[in-house]
């Protein structure tokens, strides 16, 4: 894949220093978001998806949070070394973000128009009336009917789907190159979910922006993503293209997630009454287990899992953090170089 990287994260670590101990929320995450493409970030609650997104924008509260990374490069600029004023210019202007709860992500005391135009006034230096005209333009773009009327309405006068559209209008008003969507459809019912996803795909096409779609919903992620990273306990456990995800996934956690997705006619086909589950729960992020973080819940764990596995490269678009893959790969002679660890990532970078 010879795509141009828009965002590149190398060995991101985010820690929260709490009285109970150090919460290791993100543990060495590396991935790229190519220009104009969509990266899906998949994982269950508390696996560090949102914290990763917040770390990119440097919005992790400090204290207690601390971000460290070998690099977070956006358009050739290292976001970690930017001054507070410069990172504010990136936020909203170059990287937009939308959230899970459309009910609470709009400020209840301002009209929709006011909220959309606020960022335009800040980043684009527009005057009030021009910004309001632009806001109407944005609402039209996200498919809100009668936008001239809606700009004067308050968030509580809009339905959930409408609000999420308004939120998207707000996030894209300055034409960001990257839109981070943190579970944008989780709080919406299924018909509205489909509409919002379609809208996002259309906007991506029209505006040529890249997206980072954070979700725990396999349906959503397969609908919109080009590449997918699967996260578990603050680590990337598998990085895979969407075409190979169903059927080609190698990591036992990814397989478990896929198997636990309800499929119509499953009972009839398999004769099983219960949906598959991944037994156990996510390890405490304060005291992470030694070795593979997934070994306690893994159905195929073996002796070697007491050591922490690196990311093994199967091909350019597929990496897996599992010792089994290494064993199998060596057997099959699939890959010549087995290791592509986090430390390798670090040493590949030019010294600062």
């Amino acid at each position, binding site marked *: 894949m010879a795509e141009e990287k828009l965002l590149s994260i190398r060995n991101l670590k985010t820690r929260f220093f709490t009285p109970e101990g150090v919460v290791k929320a993100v543990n060495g995450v590396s991935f790229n978001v190519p220009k104009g493409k969509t990266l899906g970030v998949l994982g269950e609650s508390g696996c560090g998806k949102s914290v990763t997104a917040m770390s990119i924008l440097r*919005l992790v509260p400090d204290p207690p949070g601390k971000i460290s990374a070998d690099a977070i490069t956006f358009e050739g600029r290292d976001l970690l070394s930017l001054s507070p004023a410069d990172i504010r210019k990136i936020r909203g202007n170059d990287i937009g973000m939308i*959230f899970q709860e459309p009910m609470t992500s709009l400020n209840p005391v301002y009209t929709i128009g006011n909220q959309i135009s606020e960022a335009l006034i800040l980043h684009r230096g527009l005057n009030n009336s021009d910004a309001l005209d632009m806001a109407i333009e944005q609402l039209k773009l996200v498919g809100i009917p009668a936008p001239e009327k809606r700009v004067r309405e308050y968030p*509580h006068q809009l*339905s959930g789907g409408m609000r999420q559209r308004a*939120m998207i209008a707000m996030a894209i008003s300055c034409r960001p190159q990257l839109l981070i969507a943190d579970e944008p459809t989780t709080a919406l019912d299924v018909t509205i979910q489909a*509409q919002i996803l379609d809208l996002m795909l259309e906007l991506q096409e029209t505006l040529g922006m890249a997206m980072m779609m954070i979700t725990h919903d396999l349906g959503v992620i397969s609908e919109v993503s080009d590449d997918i990273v699967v996260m578990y306990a603050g680590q990337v456990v598998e990085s895979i293209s969407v075409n190979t995800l169903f059927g080609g996934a190698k990591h036992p956690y990814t397989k478990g997630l896929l198997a636990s997705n309800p499929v119509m006619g499953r009972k009839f086909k398999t004769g099983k009454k219960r949906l598959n589950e991944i037994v156990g729960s996510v390890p405490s992020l304060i005291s992470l287990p030694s070795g593979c973080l997934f070994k306690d819940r893994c159905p195929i764990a073996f002796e070697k899992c007491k050591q922490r596995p690196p990311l093994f490269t199967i091909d350019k678009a597929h990496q897996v953090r599992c010792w089994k893959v290494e064993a199998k790969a060596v057997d099959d002679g699939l890959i010549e170089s087995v290791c592509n660890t986090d430390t390798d990532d670090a040493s590949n970078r030019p010294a600062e």
Partner: protein
Amino acid sequence: MGLNNTDKNLLPEESSPLNAQQDNAIPTSVSKIMRKLWQLRMGVIGGLVIMALVVVALFTPYLAPGDPYAQVPKHRLSPPAWEEGGRMENLLGTDHVGRDLLTRIMYGTRISLFVGLSAVILEVFMGVLLGLLAGYYGGKTDSIISFLVNVMLGFPFILLAMSLVAVLGASLQNIIIALGLTGWPVFTRVIRIETMRLRESEFVLAAKTQGFKTIRILTVHILPNILPTLTVLASVEVARAIIMESLLSFLGLGIQPPTPSWGLLLAEGRNYMFMAWWLATFPGLAIFLAALGINLLGDALRDLTDPHLRKS
């Protein structure tokens, strides 16, 4: 912009006629304005009371029937006009040296309202500033400010006011300072909690992701959401400040005689409670009226500043 959305926009959920009706909620005709006023009738009453008091305070010299300091010993302790032995010239009666009570209450309005409003402005300024900082930043900032608040709330008001007045001297300005210094912790407490709640809300996060500065997030995004609470609290505090000014004056720590203030009039009247009931009753009624009016108005303002209650 080249997007093909028509198929989605036709869904009933997205464009229901219900939403169209809400636009007419803005009163456009006289009858609608009247209906709105009727809904807010208590606030309207409160507003009228306050307006009347403000007019009295501003134009006292022209409205008052006489001189607040003119003593007419011949007519001392004369009862209100409708009582037996009352005189039409002294509508609410006279005090122990024959000064007209109505005139003195009217002059007192100016002082009481001024003290009440100034003290609350001081309290709001300090309280909101510290409350926002404590609630938003948390951590050490919060610990220090919360400690201060608890110390202030634990400290007896009278003792602090007495020491302040003893050090600075009894004057209008010092009463305002004393009231301001004792009143802000209530604001800080309430604003702090509200700020903490709002700090975690997604629209504040959204504001951060749009690249706004902290100061803008605090003043433009968080503060307006606290406004309804602040309005109610401030109206209660204006009433409290008026009553506390009366209390300080009553104890001889506030306004000094012969300057008329409601509290002082009440204090003087107390000495003659059994022979001249009107001397304590009417200043007391004035305090009650002002406090009630401000509270009613504050409630109505809360309803008006809250967008959820604004419609209908």
